[in-house]
Each structure stands twice: as C-alpha cells, then as structure tokens.
C-alpha cells in the first residue's frame, strides 16, 4: 500500500472515540446488510441512509454529551434515575439485540470458512478461543491493525464502486428522493424490512452505550465538548460515507444485473471491479476482520453495560472474582451465538437483516431514556437538548416504532 494512503487511514481511525465507534459500527453485520440492501433495492435505499446518518450523529452526540456533562455512563444514569426494573428491562433488550448481532458476526465467520475451504465449526471454535485471548491479552497494536484491515476493506468498496461506473447522477439524486425503480408491492415490503435492517446496523443499541462508556473511560473533559460534538458528527458522516459506497458498489454490480444475493461468493461480486478474480478471497478476509471486530466489541459492550447497571465496577478486594463475572458474561454470549449458528439452512444475509431489524426495534426504547435524560435541564444545565435535537430525535423514535410495528405485521401476516 502507498505509505501516504496508510497514513491517511491511520489518521482517520485514530481521529477519536466517535470515529472509532462509527468505524466499528460497520461490522460484518453491517457489510452483509448494506450488501443485501444494495443488491435487493438498488440506489433508492440511499434516501433512508441520509436520514439514518443525521439520526446517528444526533443520538451519538447526545450520548457523548450526556457522559461528558454528568460524568456518568448512560447505564449509570438510567439506573439512578429510573431504578432496577427499568434497568433490567433495558439490559435484556440490549442483551437480545447484541446476541443477535454476535450471531451474525459468527455466521459471517462461518460463511468465510466455506469460502476459504476450512471446516466451519473448527474455524468458529478457533475464532472463539482467539476472541477470548484477545480480550484477556489483547493490546492496542493488534486492535489498531484489525481496525486498519477493516478500514482498507471499506476502501476496496469505494474503489470498486468507482470502477463499476455506476450512474452517479441516479445514486446521488436518490439521497434526496427515492426514485428510478418500479414501486411494486414486493419492493416496498423489502424496502421496509431491509430499511429497518440498515437502520439497526448503522445505529445500534450497543453503540449508544459504547460511546458513553468510551467518553467516561477516556476521562474526557466537558471543556472539549464542542470538539467532541464535531467529532461525533464527523464519525456519523464517515460511517455512512463508507456505507454509501458499499451500497453503490453492490447496487451497480448485483442489483443492476438482477443477481439475487444469497451467498458470500455473490456478495464478493460487488468488489470484483477492483479485485478481479481475487474478489472472493478479498471479501472473505475483509468480512472476517469486520466480524472479528464486532465479535470483540459487541459482547464487551454488553458486559460493560451490565457492570454499570448493576454496579460491578470499582472494587479492589474482589477484583478477581468480578473480572471473572465479566469474562464469563463475555464468553457466554459467544457460546450462545455459536450454538445458534449451528441451526442449519439459515443464510448469513437473511440472518443479518433479521437481527439488525431487531436492533432497530430496541432503539426507541433506549432513545426514550437517552432523550429524556438529555432533555433534563436539571441534569444537563445549559447543555440540555436544543429544539432540533429534541424534536428530530423524538419524531424519528416515533417513526421507528411505527416502522417496527408495520414490519412485524408485514412479516407475520405475509403482506
């Protein structure tokens, strides 16, 4: 790789916590969901992406601001202001959503194993052991390298998108209003369900806790609030900048040629304009790195939220036993997810849409408390939400609830 390129990517990924969250948001579930969105829906899904980006920026900024001003994590505050029952309820929501996401990550690993001709369960088992070693002994360099590989993978999508010579006018104008397709009943139904998936993979329940834990861990200052605010918006832009090209790359290769996305090999077609006959291998390694990253971060966020909600942190004398609970919680999620992916006949891409939609459905629950907390002038002083933040996020939370209900009905009654 060109050294300058490497430097730029490194710069992007170490820009700050918000950027890191944003990058981590595009995990294997993200790649799979964006791929299926581009392949099934074409450019019109980009319209939804624009709003999702703004909502991502607004809500992440809320989480960051909440922690910087109050010096408490989101889970801390929910527990202190709303009590044990609400805490358990939200934690269970988070746990279910995260288990879904972890299952997708593992399912992506299973998919790559068949692309790389390795026995799947052996490979998955090996990755689980690796994940455990990683969190017990992992270091910054390794994390950075994995992030770098994943970022490079995204860049591959950008180059592929350009090389596929898409109709840029159509792509960009679809950001403003969705058009250029026949709005059949089936298309609208898919748009709704996959759109929920795109929402749930871009804005995640764990992401809300992650950003707040990160801000807390870093002991950042509320003096740098405006910088952090800029950073969260920048992070949101960056996430969906990559998502945009992933969708364009898959739309211009798969959707344009009417290829239905069912396997990893087909998803790899999207990066063929760049990678040629190496596309399959490159896709396999790229999604493997993305999956591994998700596999670390998502269960960690559950464990973190658990310790914040139920006060497991901060002890000296029982340090060992408490870390033990922490590690058990981490591994238990991976093991449950590993059991789930042994169910035969489920494709990665179906599972991605299903679990990411589930993520989206948990969001309003978390947003409700996030908005309530950040609206409170008693808690936030002059840093409470302004009108735009308040109304934009509230309106979209309501829209998500409506979309969730319609989606569930559409699936249950096979509309």
């Amino acid at each position: 790789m060109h050294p300058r390129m490497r430097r730029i990517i490194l710069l992007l990924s170490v820009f700050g916590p918000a950027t890191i969250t944003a990058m981590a948001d595009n995990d294997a579930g993200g790649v799979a969901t964006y791929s299926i969105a581009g392949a099934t829906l074409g450019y019109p899904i980009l319209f939804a992406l624009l709003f999702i980006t703004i909502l991502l920026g607004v809500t992440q900024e809320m989480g960051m601001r909440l922690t910087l001003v109050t010096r408490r994590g989101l889970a801390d505050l929910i527990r202190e202001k709303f009590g044990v029952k609400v805490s358990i309820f939200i934690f269970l929501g988070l746990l279910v959503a995260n288990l879904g996401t972890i299952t997708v990550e593992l399912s992506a690993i299973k998919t790559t194993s068949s692309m790389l001709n390795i026995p799947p369960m052996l490979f998955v088992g090996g990755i689980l052991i690796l994940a455990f070693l990683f969190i017990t002994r992992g270091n910054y360099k390794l994390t950075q390298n994995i992030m770098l590989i994943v970022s490079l993978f995204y860049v591959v999508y950008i180059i592929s998108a350009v090389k596929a010579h898409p109709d840029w006018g159509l792509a960009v104008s679809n950001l403003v209003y969705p058009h250029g397709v026949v709005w059949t009943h089936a298309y609208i139904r898919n748009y709704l369900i996959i759109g929920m998936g795109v929402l749930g993979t871009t804005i995640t329940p764990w992401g809300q806790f992650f950003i707040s834990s990160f801000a807390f861990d870093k002991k950042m200052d509320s003096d740098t609030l405006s910088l952090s605010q800029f950073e969260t918006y920048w992070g949101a832009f960056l996430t969906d900048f990559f998502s945009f090209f992933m969708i364009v790359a898959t739309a211009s290769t798969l959707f344009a040629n009417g290829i239905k996305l069912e396997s990893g090999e087909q998803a790899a077609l999207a990066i063929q304009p760049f990678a040629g006959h190496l596309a399959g291998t490159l896709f396999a390694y790229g999604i493997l790195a993305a999956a591994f990253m998700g596999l670390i971060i998502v269960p960690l966020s559950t464990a973190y939220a658990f310790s914040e909600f139920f006060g497991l942190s901060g002890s000296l004398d029982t340090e060992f036993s408490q870390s033990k609970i922490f590690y058990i919680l981490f591994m238990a999620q991976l093991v449950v997810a590993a059991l789930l992916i042994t169910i035969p006949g489920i494709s990665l891409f179906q599972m991605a849409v299903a679990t990411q939609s589930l993520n989206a459905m948990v969001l309003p629950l978390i947003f409700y408390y996030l908005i309530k907390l950040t609206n409170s002038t008693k808690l936030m002083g002059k840093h409470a939400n302004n009108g735009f933040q308040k109304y934009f996020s509230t309106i979209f939370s309501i829209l998500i609830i409506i979309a969730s209900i319609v989606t569930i009905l559409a699936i249950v009654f096979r509309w």
Partner: protein
Amino acid sequence: MAFISELTGKPVTDIDGIQIGVLKDLIARTHKEFNHPVVDAIVVQSKNEQSIIPFSEVLVLLATAISLKQNKGGFSKYISQDDDIFLIEDVLDKQIIDTDGARVVRVNDIELIRVNGNMIVSNVDVGTSGIMRRLGMAKLARKIFPSIKKEPNQGCISWDFVELLRHDQSMRLKVPAGKLAELHPSDLADIISDLSHTETGEFLDNLNLKQLADTLEEIEPDYQASLIKDMSDEKVADLLEEMSPDEAADLLAELPSTRSENLLDMMEDDEAKDVRKLLLFHEESAGGLMTTDYVSIHPDLTAEQTIKKLREIGEEAELIYYVYVTDVENHLIGVFSLSDLIMAQPKIKVTEFMHKRVVSVNLKDEQDEIAQVVSKYNLLAVPVVDDQNIMHGIVTTDDALDKIIPTSWKKRLPRFFGTLK
C-alpha cells in the same frame, strides 16, 4: 427489620383508616451522638401533591398500610434541614463509597431497624438479594441466599462504612472526611477513578494537604492535571512542594506552560530548583523518572555520624533504605543499606563497609532498561548518574515498574481499545 424496597408504594392512611396517599420517600438525619441516620419524616405522594409528614406522626410503619396519628390537615409541620438525607432520592440506586472495602458500589436496597421506637438506617444492600427484592422476588431471594451463603448479611454494608457521594441534584449531602482519612492513598486514588468530576472535587476538598499529595501521586499525571485545574494556584503550589519532586515534575509537564511556570515561581526555591531540573528530561527516561529526594553523605563520615545525619535529613527523603556515598563533586563512589549501617561498628568509616561497585543507570536510559536493572539486582531504588558518574537522583522501583505494571485503576477491566490514546 425492614427494607426500603418493601416500604415504598405502601398506602398511607390517616387515623380513620382513610388513605391519603402512598409512601414516596423517607427522610433521615444523622445525629451527633450516633453514626446511623434516624428516620425523621416520610414523604407521602397523593394524587396531586407531595407532603412531608414528621415521623412522630406515624403510628405504624411496618405494616400492610402505614397509619398516622392524625387526620389530614392535623399534622405538625416538618422543618427541613440541610443535612436531610432522602433515602430513596439520594441513596437508593446511587453509588456510594464503601470505606471498609475501599470501593465504589451501587445501593440496591436499604435496611432499616427499630431501636427504641426510632427507625434507624442500619445497612445498605449492594448484593444480588437486594436486586431480587426490588424485583418483587423477596421470598425467592430469602430462599436462595441463606442456603448458599454462610453469612446472611453478605452484600450488606453497615452505614458505619458508607460514604455518600454528592450528586448533581442533592447539594444537601456533605461528605464527612472522617471515614476516608484512614484509607491508604492508593485506595483513595482507586475511589477517585470511579467518581465523576464534581464528586471528585468535593472529595479532594476533604483531604488534608499531605493526603491529597499522596493520593495524587497514585493517579496518572494527565488525570491529575484535570483534577487540579480548578484549584487555586496557591494550593497547587503547596501541593507540589508536598509531592515528591519527580511526581511534581510529571504533573507540571501536563499543565499549560504559562501555568506551570507561574506555579514554579510560587514554590519555595529549593523545591522549585529540583523540579525544574527534572522537567528538562524526557518523561520516560531515567532523568524523567527519578526523584532528587535521596540520601547522600560524604565518605569521611563514620557509621555513628551517618545515623545521626540520617535522623536530620531522612524526613525529606523518599527512601532512606539506601545511603549513597558521594565526593565533593557529587561523584557516586559507594552505597550501603540501612542494615549494613546498623550492623557496622559505630566508629568505623563508611568507606570501609560501603559497596564500591554500585549498580546505576544513566540519565538517558529508558524505563524498560531501568526496570530490568531493578529486577535483576532486586533493588528498591537505583541511582541515576550522568556520563561523568555524577549522581543526579534515584529511580524508585515503583516508578520504574509503573508503566510495565500499570496501577490498578487502569487495568481493572479490559478497555474497549486497550490503552488507546
């Protein structure tokens, strides 16, 4: 014995048995002669208003319904005071400091007991049984926990060891420093790492200068810098003098240069000189890690004279276990330990029993090398010399190993991204 979780939401009835509302909160107050807060009033929530009723008006608290001694409107007025503790609003679900375990924990439930007609806060429950009780599974909790755990009170902390933290809304709480005074600075530092900024400010205000300096030394310099940001320059200058010169230099290096220059000017000349010298060196080299508070003596002293001298100058030194022998130009020519000194005959010169082959490190040596030297020779500290073998300071083992074995608050749980900066 009763738990707050079982009391809240209970109907409150007047003397005729007519319900006037439900129990919302309990107000307790600590009295001088007694550590545990005593319930002074109850907060009753009716449909459209909240009223505070003195505890003296309560006939029965621990029953299916809480009954009062008067009719509505006939209650005496409760006069609120600054040190009122609202048990639910201020304590339940909040983080507290357990001064016995030196940790920050979350309160799941609060236990009350009846003593001479008063209700007294006896324990706070920070365990799983408290959570289960909150979820309405009290019976299940009683069934499970006594059978598993030998101690029935596991997960409970006596109020004697509870230190409340000041939260955003509850300005009325004050942290009495008494219980904290006995904690080890490392424990205090650990607690600080769990607190929010406002709480930390309050917390630090309660420590005396010596405690504060010792505690700050246990915290990472960048976080130290943010903690002292709002302190007055006079106080910080005093603090810096109290801290050992190497720690003071590390802290000053984190501050904006105008402020650190200003602070150095305010410090006593001797101390400021040492610190200025240390500031010249790279943070992770021997020069940056060393402290100038070491003990050195002239070679012509006897063992007896040395002991006398140590009594005079030892107070200032960070470590007196090693005594370094230097000549007029401060060349390092020997070292001996306190045990060498005590075992030696009083009248003989130190040059007779000192070790002449001194293990030392160079000013420019990196931390890794120093750590290796320290562990290879089992030292408590290693002297730092320049290329001419002139002694400049010592690096203590804890400073040498600090980066390699980080202090506990940093490594407590795996961080999302390791030690990403």
